């Protein structure tokens, strides 16, 4: 292809968007509406997952040691715990620290009667996990370690969070698949109607001796540009709305602020922007290329 033909083809793709402005607007609106819904659900789902993940990170397992255990053995147990892949971090709480914490939480000024630490065997490791669903396997392992007296776990919380996480994953996959299917159906219909109107134009081009590539290229560029615009508009709207909605929720439901931890806008858009662009361009590309093909057999 000659360079001026290449630039002509690109230019025609852009010019066609304005020539067929109603079709372009309809296509952009359809793609935009579908990707807006997609972006909206994606943002909600990502934040739900983040809230559950944060809750999971607070779930811990506490390991207590046999009476009279040496400090050396406690450190050896610590090394064994660190080797486990499901462990994200661990903290050592000495017996004195445990007593201080107990006093602060429960006695609050009534501890004067105690001259010594009444819970000398309360030194422990507090273990946090990468994934709360791995808790049962970790507990079994910890209980088998020599020198470990007791392992405290919050089974109900772990099971509930694991269930919620799985539910969110299923719902999000379901919603995204349905949205994609609806989007592709709506968009392909819009593109089909738009290009069917221009069947005569394609036929004339073919009669004059245009190659399939020459006929198809401006349509494909047009479709891809419509896809890009149709993706950028909803992503832009969601970007603007995102922080405002979070600010509103935090101010109106302040008692939830400790429970709800929202992702920063970049955390969502680092994925949402490229995914929406790829979807927009992909839908525009596939929609135009398949529809034009139907009319090329002249």
């Amino acid at each position, binding site marked *: *292809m*000659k360079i*001026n*033909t290449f630039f*002509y083809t690109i230019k025609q793709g852009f010019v066609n968007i304005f*020539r067929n402005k109603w079709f372009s607007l309809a296509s952009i609106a359809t793609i935009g509406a579908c990707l807006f819904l997609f972006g909206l659900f994606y943002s909600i789902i990502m934040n739900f997952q983040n809230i559950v993940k944060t809750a999971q990170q607070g779930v811990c397992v506490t390991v207590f040691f046999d009476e009279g255990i040496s400090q050396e053995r406690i450190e050896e147990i610590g090394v064994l715990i660190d080797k486990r892949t499901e462990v994200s971090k661990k903290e050592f709480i000495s017996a004195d620290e445990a007593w201080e914490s107990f006093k602060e939480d429960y006695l609050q000024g009534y501890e004067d009667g105690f001259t010594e630490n009444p819970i000398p065997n309360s030194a422990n490791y507090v273990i946090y996990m990468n994934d709360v669903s791995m808790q049962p396997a970790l507990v079994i392992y910890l209980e088998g370690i020599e020198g470990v007296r007791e392992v405290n776990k919050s089974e109900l919380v772990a099971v509930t969070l694991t269930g919620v996480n799985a539910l969110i994953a299923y719902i999000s996959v379901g919603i995204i698949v349905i949205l994609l299917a609806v989007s592709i159906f709506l968009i392909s219909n819009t593109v089909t109607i738009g290009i069917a109107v221009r069947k*005569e*134009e394609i*036929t*004339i*081009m*073919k*009669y*004059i*001796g*245009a*190659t*399939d590539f*020459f006929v198809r290229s401006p349509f494909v560029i047009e479709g891809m540009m419509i896809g890009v615009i149709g993706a950028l508009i909803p992503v832009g709207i969601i970007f603007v709305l995102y922080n405002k909605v979070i600010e509103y929720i935090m101010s109106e439901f302040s008692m939830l602020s400790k429970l709800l931890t929202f992702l920063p806008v970049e955390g969502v858009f680092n994925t949402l922007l490229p995914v929406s662009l790829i979807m927009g361009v992909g839908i525009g590309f596939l929609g135009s290329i398949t529809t034009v093909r139907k009319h090329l057999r*002249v």
Partner: protein
Amino acid sequence: MAKSDVKGRRKKRQGAGNDEIITLENVSKAYATGAPALNGVDLHIRKGEFVFIVGDSGSGKSTMIKLLLRELVPSEGEINVMGYDLVRIRHRKIPKFRRNLGIVFQDFRLLKDRNVYENVAFAQRIIQASNKEIKRNVPSILATVGLAGKYKAKPRQLSGGEQQRVAIARALVNRPSILLADEPTGNLDPKNSWEIMKLLEQINENGTTVLVVTHNREIVNAMQKRVVTMKKGVIVSDEEKGGYIDED
């Protein structure tokens, strides 16, 4: 005309030699339903000829044009146009073949959203002409068809005759060897019809082979060109300087 006369004339044409630019040998075209649209047609057209194809509706004229454009493939027989074997030509070679063929339709088939200049330049874009060539050739061909002053007009701003001139300019700008005109005066008044036919005659005098499918009895009788008459899918008459034959 007796059938033997037609056969004799066909034989004479087949003997015309290597200057044949369009050859149809025993061509038949049958659609899924109904009688065949073409039935064993032989036709030989030499370079530089001006030929009218006439006949009533259903005579096979449109099918013949579609076969010559390679929009259709014959069910039987051989078609050769400008050295291209249209039965065996590969799909990707069809655009190159069509670029040597100028086509004019009854309904003009202009790109409605582009002006006169862009419609004509479009044919040059397809053959990948340079911008310099386009700027040189398009005004020149528009001057030839008498539309130099209307290059900015959109098709809807032109009369039927003017639109047909744009279509002819588009068909000619790539200097085709053959100009196929399918009912070029079908949508025009008598005055414009004559002007278009004079233009086609002038194009033919400059060396382009012109094939005109028409219903226009007056023009066919007046122009005294070769006339091929079709009826129910067969050629019933083929005369040099012929006339329009009335149906029985």
